[in-house]
């Protein structure tokens, strides 16, 4: 092989690589955490108490015209859960609750998105929390807001399925926790 061919190949592969990178950048939108929120509402004796995860990140590829290629990947720092009650924070980081030292991250990784009419969709995927992974369905709506895309939805999540809160809580605290999200992707 002479120098000319080698030069051609390396130039060519650089172009391919650049194009691939560009395509990846164009298709993948990062989550703009400053304009997004993920909350969990616990219900104790019918009293709803909402807390928010302050730190999360992720990427979403979404084109309503090409749902087959839709992908979402969200990662949440469990220690960032904020109930607005610092006196309970330490407790919530403990083994009975999120056990944040052992399981610092929760994640959702989609496996497919389907349309259910209008701007409503359902994402299927794996949700991992406290080391337990379950297949879940996440209903959501999509809209555009000043050039960004906003994904919004809520779903019930079983506390017990992920061992959040010990058995002594079962009389006081509902199993069902409502997780709400509003995720804005930067464009």
């Amino acid at each position, binding site marked *: 092989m002479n120098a000319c061919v080698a030069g051609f190949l390396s130039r060519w592969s650089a172009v391919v690589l650049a194009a691939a990178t560009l395509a990846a950048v164009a298709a993948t939108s990062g989550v703009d955490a400053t304009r997004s929120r993920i909350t969990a509402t616990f219900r*104790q*004796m019918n*009293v*709803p*108490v909402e807390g928010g995860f302050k730190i999360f990140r992720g990427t979403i590829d979404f084109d309503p015209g090409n749902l087959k290629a839709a992908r979402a990947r969200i990662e949440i720092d469990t220690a960032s859960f904020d109930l*607005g009650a610092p006196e309970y924070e330490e407790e919530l980081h403990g083994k009975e609750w999120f056990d944040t030292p052992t399981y610092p991250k929760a994640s959702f990784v989609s496996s497919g998105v389907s349309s259910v009419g209008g701007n409503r969709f359902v994402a299927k995927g794996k949700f991992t929390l406290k080391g337990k992974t379950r297949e879940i369905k996440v209903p959501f709506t999509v809209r555009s807001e000043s050039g960004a895309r906003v994904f919004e939805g809520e779903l019930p999540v079983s506390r017990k399925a992920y061992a959040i809160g010990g058995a002594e809580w079962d009389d*006081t*605290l509902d199993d069902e926790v409502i997780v709400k999200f509003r995720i804005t992707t930067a464009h």
Partner: protein
Amino acid sequence: MRDATRYTPVAISLHWLIALLIFAGWGLGLYMADLPLSPAKLRYYSWHKWMGVTTFILVILRVGWLATHPAPSLPRAMPPWQTRTARVTHFVLYLLMFVIPLSGWLMSSAKGVPTVYFGVLPIPDLIAKDKAIGDLLAVVHRSLAYGLAALVGLHVAAAIKHQLMDRDGVMGRMIPFLAPPRN
């Protein structure tokens, strides 16, 4: 009119019912606040709030009743400074019975833990969740509760003094089986 030297049975019932709620609510409030997070703690908080809402409602009824059924007069032999002090003490007691549940209600909203009466009836949040306001209202609620405790102490001590030292029957106005005042 009936025996005007005594409170009406309605006023007497409201007084003792509210007294019971104040003692129970005060004790529970003091006890629960420093407990570590547990299902029991949250239950106690709910019970405490239900007591507060009940007190609030009863106090409104009681003030309405008082407005239409004046309190029996105090013994004429009482020195004016004592009747004045009694009037002021009673006014502040009413004020605190009203303001303490109110501050607790606002604090619950600010802390993001709404009040649901008997676990059934959600009491609307008058203010939004706000940590700084919640912490401030906690101090207000606690301080007013200590103020109420001091005033209740004075109230009880005065009643006992009337019964045992003055022997003027003032306590009998509120306790049916004691002799009513002789005027």
